[in-house]
């Protein structure tokens, strides 16, 4: 292993390459373009190809093709491009193509502010495409985590055969930090589950019962797999029957749920005896942690829960962290998306927590507030949290 000084755009690129990235298809969009540029030079040196498509729609559809043809594939984008990719993400989910999309979040909606931070894509990451499907999304909070979770995103993608969204932000993208790059032997790399039967026995959408994930035949191996965007049976043939539709879409959702323990991730800070539990992701969590430490210094029992997997959410760890809290405060640069998620989790687990009040500290700003500014925001709302 070796230590390098990288920003999270570079760290994600390095992590992806460590995981075996084969194809990058992208389109320039601030603040992700330099990841694309970095890979356009580095990836060919490691035997992979980088392609600039005509738009983000072409990018995401090319990734599905590349994935089904046997390459670990990814792209990086930001809000406007992410929105364009929504149909393609649904396509990837429907044909169960593993791939990684990095959303380097910026201030939105629409063109917004290209060069400044946003955190408004949390719901969109999972719910942005139409219909019934599921996927996995991670939100690292440092360049090291960006490296580690680029690898874990690919692992997740191949474990459950979904697109995986890695959500960083405009601040992380260009903040250089120490990153320890692991040697190949130190990493767990998950690839596809190869078919165990002969081509005439193979059914492209027949899941293994233990994980609900079908073994994946690549193009060119003689299995003649069908990638079918219409609702399909196990053979990939278009079928409109109620039972077949239900079986398919339920499985697309459940295959992530049944593998949840291998997918969730989060971190808690000072939570064992926290009375006020703050919740934030990404760069915001870093500033918030400084505030939590300061409050602790003043004798206030503050703690923080930081989700790393957004979807599926690590609700068990959250419930454990919130067990003794009387107040939960979500702090995010949007209108309250973590807030909506946690309201639901708290209700579902109301017999496991001590009836906390949840506060939505929505700060729709295009810059990170300092710890003092977060405190000022709390005070300006007249909340008596301690």
């Amino acid at each position: 292993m070796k230590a390098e000084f990288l920003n999270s755009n570079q760290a994600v690129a390095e992590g992806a390459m460590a995981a075996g990235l084969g194809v990058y298809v992208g389109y320039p969009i601030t603040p992700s373009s330099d990841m694309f540029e970095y890979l356009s030079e580095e990836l060919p040196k490691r035997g992979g190809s980088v392609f600039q498509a005509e738009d983000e729609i072409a990018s995401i559809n090319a990734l599905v093709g590349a994935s089904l043809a046997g390459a670990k594939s990814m792209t990086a984008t930001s809000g406007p491009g992410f929105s364009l990719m929504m149909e393609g993400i649904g396509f990837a989910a429907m044909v169960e193509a593993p791939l990684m999309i990095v959303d380097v979040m910026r201030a939105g909606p629409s063109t917004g502010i290209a060069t400044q931070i946003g955190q408004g894509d949390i719901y969109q990451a999972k719910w942005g495409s139409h219909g019934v499907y599921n996927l996995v999304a991670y939100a690292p909070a440092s360049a090291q985590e960006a490296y580690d979770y680029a690898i874990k995103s690919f692992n997740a993608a191949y474990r459950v055969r979904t697109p995986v969204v890695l959500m960083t932000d405009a601040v992380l993208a260009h903040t250089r930090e120490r990153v320890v790059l692991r040697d190949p032997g130190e990493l767990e790399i998950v690839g596809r589950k190869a078919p165990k039967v002969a081509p005439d026995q193979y059914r492209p959408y027949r899941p293994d019962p233990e994980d609900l994930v079908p073994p994946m035949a690549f193009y060119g191996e003689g299995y003649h797999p069908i990638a079918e965007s219409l609702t399909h049976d196990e053979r990939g043939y278009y079928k409109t029957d109620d039972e077949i539709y239900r079986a398919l879409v339920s499985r697309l959702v459940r295959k992530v749920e049944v593998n949840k323990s291998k997918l969730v991730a989060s971190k808690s800070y000072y939570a064992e005896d926290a009375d006020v539990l703050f919740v934030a992701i990404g760069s915001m969590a870093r500033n918030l942690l400084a505030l939590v430490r300061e409050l602790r210094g003043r004798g206030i029992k503050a703690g923080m829960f930081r989700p790393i997997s957004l979807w599926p959410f690590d609700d068990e760890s959250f419930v454990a962290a919130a067990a003794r809290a009387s107040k939960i405060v979500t702090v995010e640069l949007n209108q309250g998306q973590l807030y909506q998620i946690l309201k639901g989790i708290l209700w579902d687990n109301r017999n496991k927590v001590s009836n906390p009040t949840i506060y939505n500290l929505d700060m729709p700003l295009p810059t990170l507030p300092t710890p003092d500014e977060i405190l000022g925001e709390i005070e300006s709302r007249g909340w008596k949290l301690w």
Partner: protein
Amino acid sequence: MVMLEEKPSHPLDAYMRTDRLPHIWCPGCGIGIALQQFLWAVKELHEEGKLDPNKIVFATGIGCTGRASGFVKFDTAHTPHGRAIPFAVGVKLANPSLIPVVFSGDGDIASIGGNHMMHAARRNFDMLVIMVNNMTYGLTGGQLAPTTPHSVYSTTTPMGNPESPIDATKVVYSISPNFVARMSITHPNLIRDTVKKALLMKGFRWIEVLSTCPEIFGRHINMRDPYELYSRLKKVVKFKKVASANDIKYDWNSEITCGVFTEKNDPSYMENYLSMYGLKEKLGVLSP
């Protein structure tokens, strides 16, 4: 009446998912005619030892023509509307030994997919695109297509089409990829010959195949009988050599120029990329 011991099956059955036949296309639909000739081309090249059908990735979009991926026994993809071409790009980038074939309709490729069509042609990207043109949006019931002739009825232009159609082949011709041709289902043997040639070339190869949709387009122009529409199409297609884009016509009322308009051997996208970026191993397995 005699009971057969062994049924002779259609000579192309080996390349089809026969459990899904009869296919869903209407009586007299030209898509089946175009597909048949594509499969003959594959079969003949296969038997000549020049093509491995296991390397074909047959990608279609949405529409009646897009349903073709359900009937062929290759590696296939039924992609979102307009996106078969970028899908094929990804396939080729991942595994340069694969042979992407895009087989889709005029609405799918030239309307929503138009941007992808243009750029793939511009890049001379390694793929064969067959655009079956029936001048309507058949599957969804007969809405206007970018290829629908002026003043013709469609369900979204009930007082007649106020627009002029695009000649997609002329557009691609002007971008100048390696192979540009327009064929017609009324001249099936020429489709086969052209596909055979194109499958062995490199770079971006484009074959538009004019087709009949008697049930919808035919009905809209009062020619619902399959043979009547077929004859009408046969009258308007003219096979010519062209010297420039001006020679290529697309006029349902006078002439739709057909033939092989461009045939050259410029380096393909993958050749250029793989050699410029030192990807020698992939260059070694690159196939047309």
